[in-house]
């Protein structure tokens, strides 16, 4: 009996020390996040104004101006990326989960996995080679193209995983109603998992909203506002990079505020995603 309680005590001590260690480590893990947020808030909030969202940047040395061109540019780039990346990613995801396993599917899965791990600067280089060079110049198309390549594997993998969660007998229930396979898939199964698919799309959008490397030598940048899809276009990440490394105080302030806005948007996208996941469960 005595021995038992002794062991009991030891167990409690072990338990408590394990919990303490875990708490300390978890705290260490979230500290950077906390500092990033608070530092950005402190440095960036001062520059928040209507002008930040509506005005173009002013030339060096002049006070004021905003990042309207970068914000608009990012939205345009995201739209281009989505209009290629989402359908292609969805198609890949459906193919991965529905096609009978064979050489094609295995090759596709390998490609998608490899694509996920390709450094985004390399994707930028690729877009430079296949879009910028033939078009003889930086353009919104090139930037959107590069971002869409970042999106494809994310959308494909999440779509595949969501579809795999649907039990095969649900599928068979559709077949048993006398419906062809493609109709069951497109009209009964996929609509049923749209929340999950949306989640993947939002995550991919959040990811590419912050991508800088693939844009550096594809979309490049401009400080005049939108000039057409065949022209260089500004984006939040690239603009932040340019301004943060400048020696102009107004520009550096814009960079901080831009970073705050960018983090906020990405954060929001992640929150919406979480909400969708929670609701699905």
């Amino acid at each position, binding site marked *: 009996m005595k021995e038992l309680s002794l062991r009991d005590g030891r167990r409690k001590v072990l338990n408590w020390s394990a919990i303490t260690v875990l708490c300390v480590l978890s705290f260490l893990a979230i500290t950077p996040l906390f500092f990033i947020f608070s530092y950005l808030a402190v440095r960036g909030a001062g520059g928040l104004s209507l002008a930040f969202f509506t005005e173009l940047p002013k030339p060096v040395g002049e006070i004021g101006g905003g990042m309207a061109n970068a914000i608009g540019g990012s939205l345009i780039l995201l739209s281009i990326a989505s209009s290629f990346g989402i359908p292609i990613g969805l198609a890949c995801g459906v193919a991965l989960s529905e096609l*009978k396993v064979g050489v094609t599917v295995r090759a596709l899965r390998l490609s998608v996995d490899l694509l996920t791990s390709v450094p985004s600067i390399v994707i930028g280089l690729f877009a430079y080679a296949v879009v910028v060079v033939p078009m003889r110049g930086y353009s919104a198309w090139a930037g959107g193209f590069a971002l869409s390549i970042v999106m494809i594997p994310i959308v494909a993998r999440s779509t595949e995983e969501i579809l795999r969660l649907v039990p095969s*007998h*649900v599928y068979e229930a*559709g077949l048993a*109603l006398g*419906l062809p396979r493609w109709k069951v898939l497109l009209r009964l199964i996929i609509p049923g998992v749209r929340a999950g698919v949306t989640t993947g799309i939002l995550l991919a959008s959040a990811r590419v909203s912050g991508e800088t490397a693939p844009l550096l030598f594809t979309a490049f940048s401009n400080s005049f506002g939108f000039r057409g899809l065949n022209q260089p276009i500004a984006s939040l990440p690239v603009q932040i990079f340019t301004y943060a490394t400048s020696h102009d105080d107004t520009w550096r302030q814009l960079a901080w505020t831009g970073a705050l806005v960018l983090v906020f948007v990405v954060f929001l996208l992640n929150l919406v995603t979480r909400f969708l996941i929670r609701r699905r469960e």
Partner: protein
Amino acid sequence: MTDSEISLRTEGLSAWFGDHHVVKSISLSVSRNDVYALIGPSGCGKSTFIRCLNRLHEEIDGARVQGDVWISGDSGSENIYAPGSDPVAIRRQVGMVFQKPNPFPGLSIFDNVVAGLRLAGVKRRSVLEEVVETSLKHAALWTEVKDKLKKPGTSLSGGQQQRLCIARALAVRPKILLMDEPTSALDPISTARIEELVMRLRSEVTVLIVTHNMQQAARISNQTAFFLMGELVESGPTSRIFTKPKDTRTEQYITGRFG
């Protein structure tokens, strides 16, 4: 028994998973408006057998079928395994209810019931509404859900979901309804409700029901077939199978000595 009374007849029906021969040359006939029970220990091929009757077996990788299955329709008898026969058209005549309730996720109760018709091109709202009401009434679910047809099918209880699946299958007006242990995932009350409704369905469709519950077979079926290791040991009127089985293996099974 004249030919016109036969609803479904199998002739030397065999099925394989790869090299594994799981249904061995089964021949049996089911009359119109029978409730036909298939009993036997688990793994004896009951599910595989009924999945051959709506050509669902062949959807599995490496699965294969041999033999004939005749179903009688408006234009006489048709072999569903005849060359050129279209599985999609066959399945519209032979509905199926699965072991686990499986409403389409994310679809409302209404949309679940009309899924088969709507995707086959029926668009008229009034037609769909009528089908929903009659099907749900047949499935004894109408009074419980008539005020929440827009709610997701998955929001219902397990027993209600299974009745929703029955309504969904009935909505395309099949001549034959296959049920694979439809109550094995349900509580006793839900089970009783489904048994009742199956007995009432007799007048509408021919029912083949797999069950591992012998009391259930005795309660609701008029014909029973006993399967063992992929073979049909014996079949006949339920009352006879349960009181005077001809084969000692049947007797051993129904008296609970194995299985």
